[in-house]
């Protein structure tokens, strides 16, 4: 599909999702997937601020442990937190061993084959609430078009987090952020449950969670919550092969 068509389809899909009650983690995961498809990037993910200002991973195009670790580290060091603190895009950062800026992040990113990173702020009325992180295995700058698209998608992500709250006071925003972060925790716990019960890895566990949610037209977090609270047992999750392709 041509890039423009993919972007339009993405925006329509996201807008479509934003009307009723929707799952923020679901939306941000789809957004991360589309970043990878629509732009010349190899991995994408979103980190959000807690109300107290700590950065936390919430969604990614990849659930591999190694990619998650890269986000974990970025709670303290890396392009995401730099972007979050200054509220400005941090683009075209080539990773090289000689670079001492991010002593824990850089070697890990390089080891996973990433050669450049970019971070776009999620900004809301002057307040930065997180960042969209993009990883590429190639060096060299991102196309200007891509940077614009990336910021546009970051802006969509920001709107999604608001969950159609029209009156945006700080307290409401704090509650939304808190909710998103707690949702991610529930999802990680559910991954652990699925992984142990069905003897699969965490990546596959997420896939089963997501497939089940889609098949039953339910939110990712709802299904995860049902598993964590014991209202759904891993054995009742749809078998991966039963997934309808989307």
């Amino acid at each position: 599909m041509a890039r423009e068509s993919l972007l339009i389809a993405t925006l329509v899909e996201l807008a479509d999702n934003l009307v009723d009650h929707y799952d923020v983690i679901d939306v941000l995961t789809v957004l991360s997937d589309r970043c990878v498809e629509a732009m010349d990037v190899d991995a994408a993910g979103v980190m959000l601020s807690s109300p107290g200002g700590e950065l936390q991973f919430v969604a990614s195009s990849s659930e591999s442990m190694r990619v998650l670790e890269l986000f974990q580290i970025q709670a303290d060091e890396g392009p995401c937190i730099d972007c979050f603190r200054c509220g400005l895009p941090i683009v075209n950062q080539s990773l090289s061993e000689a670079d001492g800026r991010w002593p824990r992040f850089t070697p890990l990113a390089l080891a996973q084959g990433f050669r450049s990173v970019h971070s776009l702020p999620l900004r809301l009325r002057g307040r930065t609430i997180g960042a969209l992180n993009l990883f590429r295995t190639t060096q060299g700058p991102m196309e200007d078009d891509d940077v614009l698209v990336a910021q546009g998608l970051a802006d969509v992500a920001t709107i999604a987090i608001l969950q159609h709250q029209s009156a945006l006071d700080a307290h409401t925003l704090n509650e939304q952020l808190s909710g998103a972060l707690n949702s991610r925790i529930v999802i990680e716990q559910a991954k652990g449950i699925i992984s142990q019960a069905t003897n699969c890895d965490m990546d596959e566990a997420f896939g089963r969670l997501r497939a089940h949610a889609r098949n039953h037209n339910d939110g990712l977090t709802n299904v995860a919550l049902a598993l964590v609270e014991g209202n759904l047992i891993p054995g009742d999750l749809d078998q991966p092969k039963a997934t309808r392709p989307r």
Partner: protein
Amino acid sequence: MVADRLADIFALMAQYEREHPQSATLCAVAAELTELSGAGISLSSSGDEMTKLCTSNRVAENLMDLEITVGEGPGSEASRSGEANDEVDLMAPEISRWMAYSPEAVVAGARAVFGFPVRIGAVRFGALSLFRDSPGPLSETQSSDAYLMASVIGRAVLAMQAGAPSGSLLGELQGQSTFDFSVHQAAGMLSVQGSLSMKDALVALRAHAFAVKITSAALAQQMISRRVAFDPESGTWQEMGTRDGN
């Protein structure tokens, strides 16, 4: 900046710890950080049972006792719903509720009350109740500070319930990050291995990490890579791949 605010919390805790027992420190710090008239922390066990962990002054204690007795109020509500709430003027409430609580709370000396859940994902430990002797909402800073404090309290309560040695709490809190995906995944695995609720799994994970003197994250990694697991038959933790687990 976050790191600054967390540092402020830890500095206050260090200061109070010298003079107070461990749990009382958390309340005193919560009240001072948010610059409100008082704070109380309640714990919830299964069902709606609330117990008092600590209060920062006599009025806070009376308010907490009142909440526990009538089963209504900001902490009780936050505990049950998992969401923050407030009543910015108990004498002119916006929502018609807390008929047993509100008049008595005013008599006790509160005019505005605020409740924040103390939770980790879907696991609810209890609530932080804050009050002011004059009406009005929280400022943006106070709101963020309260959420941050609730998150620190959550980690503290988890550590305490896991048997953190007294006096070690501050060091414990300073060493952890708020969200480590591997710890949550491992808790999910443990909940299946040991047929535990997620709360019990989180506590058991923390407790075992204390016992073998490694971080929760390190233990989590061992579990995820299937090197260590909990064996329900023997009720012990075992190294996988050895004939007799140690």
